[in-house]
């Protein structure tokens, strides 16, 4: 827009109002974001990059056992080797890929199932809604870690089994939230108009309701992701989650935990098993920071006092 020397009303009216592009709007929001949100975003991007480029970044393969067991830090192995001689640093990098990938797939599946069922229940409000809601009530009455353990004992610990079991258990919470927020939107006139126009259920769900309930769902996605991530890490730590030789942060803690006993003699070695646990904690904190900022921004809430 050029600066005009003399003011002209016609010129101003004639001017096409330029909309700030989407990218520009996001940038403006980011510039206003607090430092915690920036920290969270940077940490998440680093994790994402490491996960995507794991094979390029890792010096050795995750299942390469051709080194001595429990080698110390340095000397070709940045963080030493584990109990059967695999490079710890490489496994840490591959662990990002496996753990985050599986957690992401699980969260996506749980949103697909829980979200679509929740929307359907909110729109139809008939016996489907009743049956699903009661079912979810009962499923939520069992602690999910216990339920997951029980199902894993039946179906065995395969990666796909793990993803499906955790996704279904987690989708109950997604169902509740989706149903609750879409109930407010379903009663709007434009939804009724669309239904009267004869649009199909899928169209109404996707085009009329979904855009209006997206912000709380995105925030929930972040929270559910960190919860799923912690659950999978806990299950792997217990030895019934992701199975070897796939590198994964939960089981890496367990496998090398005995090193902690020797902290007096080799403090670096004792810290090694804590690194994957710290990586889990850092990602959880980062996701929570970003979700807090996002909720704050979209809901227009002021700071709690």
């Amino acid at each position, binding site marked *: 827009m050029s600066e005009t020397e003399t003011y002209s009303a016609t010129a101003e009216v004639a001017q096409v109002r330029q909309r700030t592009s989407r990218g520009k709007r996001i940038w403006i929001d980011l510039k206003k974001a607090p430092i915690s949100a920036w920290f969270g975003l940077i940490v998440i991007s680093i994790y994402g990059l490491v996960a995507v480029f794991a094979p390029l970044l890792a010096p050795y393969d995750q299942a390469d056992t051709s080194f001595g067991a429990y080698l110390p830090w340095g000397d070709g192995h940045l963080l030493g080797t584990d109990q059967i001689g695999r490079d710890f640093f490489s496994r840490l990098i591959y662990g990002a890929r496996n753990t985050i990938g599986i957690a992401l797939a699980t969260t996506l599946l749980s949103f697909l199932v829980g979200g679509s069922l929740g929307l359907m229940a909110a729109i139809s409000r008939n016996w489907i809604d009743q049956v699903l809601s009661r079912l979810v*009530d*009962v499923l939520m*009455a*069992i*602690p999910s*870690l*216990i*339920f997951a*353990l*029980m*199902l*894993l*004992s*039946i*179906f*065995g610990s395969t990666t796909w089994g793990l993803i499906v079991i955790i996704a279904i258990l987690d989708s109950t919470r997604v169902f509740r939230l989706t149903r609750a927020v879409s109930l407010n939107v379903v009663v709007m006139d434009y939804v009724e108009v669309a239904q009267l126009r004869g649009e199909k259920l899928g169209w109404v769900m996707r085009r009329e309701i979904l855009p209006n309930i997206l912000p709380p769902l995105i925030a929930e996605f972040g929270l559910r992701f960190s919860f799923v991530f*912690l659950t999978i*890490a*806990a299950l792997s*730590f*217990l*030895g*019934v989650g992701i199975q070897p030789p796939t590198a994964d942060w939960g089981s890496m*803690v*367990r496998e090398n*935990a005995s090193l*902690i*006993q*020797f*902290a*007096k003699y080799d*403090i670096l070695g*004792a*810290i090694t*098993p*804590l690194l994957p*646990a*710290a990586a*889990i*904690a850092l990602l*959880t*904190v980062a996701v*929570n920071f970003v979700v807090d900022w996002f909720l704050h921004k979209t809901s227009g809430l002021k700071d*709690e*006092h």
Partner: protein
Amino acid sequence: MHPIVRTVIQRLLMGLFTLFVVSLIIFSSIELLPGDFGEAVLGQAATEETVTAFRRELGLDQPAYTRYFQWVAGVVQGDFGTSFSGRAASGIDRSRDVVDLIAPRLENTLFLAVMTALIAVPLALFLGITTALYRNTIYDRVVNAFTLTTIATPEFFVAYILILFFASLYQVFPSLANIEQSMSFGEKIYRSALPSLTLTLVIVAHMMRMTRAAIINLLASPYIEMARLKGVSSRRVILKHALPNAWAPIATVIAFNLAYLVVGVVVVEVVFVYPGIGQLMVDAVRTRDIPVVQACALFFAGTYIILNLVADIIGIITNPRLLHPR
């Protein structure tokens, strides 16, 4: 009938129904097993007769509903069946009753849970009330930052950090909490110090934050402002005016966290090799010992449901507003 009584009874019936459905789900887990699990349990060398005998012992030749009622009748009388482990292809049965496996471990788990609850609940209430009282001071900020950190970290991380500092670098407590029946009470407490401390750190954070939030929410209501304008001291405002109305949410939070404690016990027991029911369940899951898994799951789910039920009932009794729905 008094409306309070009616609401409580409704809630109790709802809880009973949930327990029934949960027992149904746990029972049907054995139905979902693949058809050839008899061979998987008994080993490759099992003859057809032993497999058939094993299936008959489990009652798999009878319809499912008959077995469900038999199972429930057994559970009510304390009979959870026999463990899958210790069975051999030759038909020799060295398996033990699930009850014998569970009973001593249940005692240990309850010991740990009660010990943790006795420390954590008063501590969380104290911290929650004082941080609400001295809001936005340095004390409040430090406590808040600390609790936020412990919420975000997985239990086993907290546990291993405690081991690193208190068992390895400075040998104050043992890192293995292998308690036994024969130990004295003091010895048991000493050995379970680290697992109990881990669980305390994890649940105090939740409880303290929600207590603080509940009280701060109340402090915004007009009657509190009225009390303040009368010139009542802030300590009295919180203890006499705010706290009575905050009991319902606080009770919910405490019960919810005790329920969480029962679940969190699983991971912590594995870290410290504590001979409790959580570790038993994890071992049973690994060996796919379904009767033991069922019994443990029933215990955990039952405790969880009952604690939540108690919280709801306390909420109904202490909060008259719940009795007048819109």
